């Protein structure tokens, strides 16, 4: 009964009952080419019995025009069970290639089934890069998915609101994370990128724009020392100005004795005027002032 069914099957599709007759050739040969990786696929040949195996050959323009239209077998895709063959290694020049596949089952083989139309790798579909924009403190970083040698990334970034000033960076070799710029606090930065393949001189569409700003936590950490430093600097500056222009000087002991404690303030002002005319000396008196303060305070 089963034999009857299989016979009918063959009668329908090929009208061939002979055991040694040709197998049906694989159908729907197509090439899937994304990011310079090329895969030949085809529909399986469904026949009863042992598994059907497939073999693939290619023909470049050189073979077609200069080497007697010869075909070259792809050994990795010889007698395979799957209906897919990675032909990336052999589609290695930017010329039109032809590809063909045939089925075999034991001693039976099919006719070659050829790709409809030639394939040139320059038509490969380039996907926008998978990108992650990171704000690490004030550092604007971008992480790009590695696509292998021969792939470059054109990265465009700008400060949000300043779209006219777009910066560009080209990355030829991805080392996990790319540093783009130092960000200013309070501003958001936006990034988009596209893949570029120099071999075929083509670019992908842009990735979706991603924007980031200086992260709150990092900002606090970084600005905390600044908060402390500012009052310190202000105090220090006031001291410098104070020492430079209005030094507090101390009268020599002799004058103090002569003028007496009632007139001390007046005499100090007189001498201050003199010192403002000779600033370089001021610091020396300041030093003396601090030395004297300890000893003369009881008076």
């Amino acid at each position, binding site marked *: 009964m089963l034999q009857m069914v299989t016979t009918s099957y063959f009668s329908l599709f090929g009208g061939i009952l002979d055991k040694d007759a040709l197998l049906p050739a694989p159908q729907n040969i197509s090439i899937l080419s994304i990011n310079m990786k090329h895969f030949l696929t085809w529909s399986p040949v469904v026949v009863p019995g042992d598994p059907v195996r497939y073999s693939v050959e290619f023909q470049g323009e050189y073979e077609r025009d200069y080497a007697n239209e010869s075909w070259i077998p792809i*050994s990795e895709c010889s007698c395979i069970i799957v209906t897919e063959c990675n032909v990336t290694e052999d589609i290695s020049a930017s010329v039109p290639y032809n590809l063909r596949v045939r089925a075999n089952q034991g001693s039976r083989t099919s006719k070659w089934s050829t790709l409809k139309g030639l394939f040139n790798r320059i038509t490969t579909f380039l996907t926008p890069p998978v990108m992650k924009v990171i704000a690490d403190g004030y550092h604007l970083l971008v992480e790009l998915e590695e696509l292998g*040698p021969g792939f470059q990334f054109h990265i465009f970034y700008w400060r949000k609101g300043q779209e006219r000033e777009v910066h560009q960076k080209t990355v030829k070799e991805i080392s996990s994370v790319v540093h783009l710029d130092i960000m200013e606090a309070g501003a958001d930065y936006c990034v988009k990128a596209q893949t570029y393949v120099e071999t075929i001189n083509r670019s992908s569409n842009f990735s979706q724009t991603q924007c980031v700003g200086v992260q709150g936590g990092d900002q606090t950490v970084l600005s905390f020392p600044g908060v402390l430093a500012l009052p310190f600097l202000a105090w220090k500056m006031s001291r410098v100005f104070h020492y430079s222009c209005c030094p507090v000087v101390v009268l020599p002991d002799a004058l103090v004795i002569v003028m007496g404690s009632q007139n001390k303030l007046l005499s100090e002002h007189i001498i201050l005027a003199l010192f403002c005319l000779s600033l370089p000396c001021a610091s020396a008196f300041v030093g003396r002032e601090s030395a004297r303060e300890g000893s003369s305070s009881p008076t």
Partner: protein
Amino acid sequence: MKVSCLLCFLSATFWFYLMPTTGNKTFQFGPCTISVNVNEIRASFTAIKATIVSTVPCAVDVERPHLREIGSILFKSADRCCIIHHLLRFYIDKVFKHCETEDSHVNRKISSIANSFLSIKKKFRQCHEKNVCDCKEEAIEKYKQILTNYGQLNVTSAAMKSLGELDILLDWMEKIH
């Protein structure tokens, strides 16, 4: 025997005027600006070098008496375009088709190099639609000499020898840049 080295030296001019880039490199051959992916050719060649060299009989020896002479022509920018164009045709028409081996892997790599050369040749063809390379008498004479010498050799050996020296060209190119 001189032929292969002459070819080698001539071919080296492929790589002579390269821009310092990693992928495609741009050559200026007279009026034609041609970009070539040198890395791809090198990768294919490196994969088969050992096999290719081992197939060349020892009798096919290396002689280089004419290198300087040929070089003096090649360094003239006016002749470079002509010589290179002829050399491309020479490799495509005569060398690669005689480089078939019993090793499928090697044949596939040779196919890769041959198709790469063909793509370069096509770029020349596009350029020539607008600008024609002038071939001066001296350059044509040298090319004819190459063809004559090549015809006197065992075709397969000469072809494999020429192919086997591809890395010398690439190395020379790297030195220049």
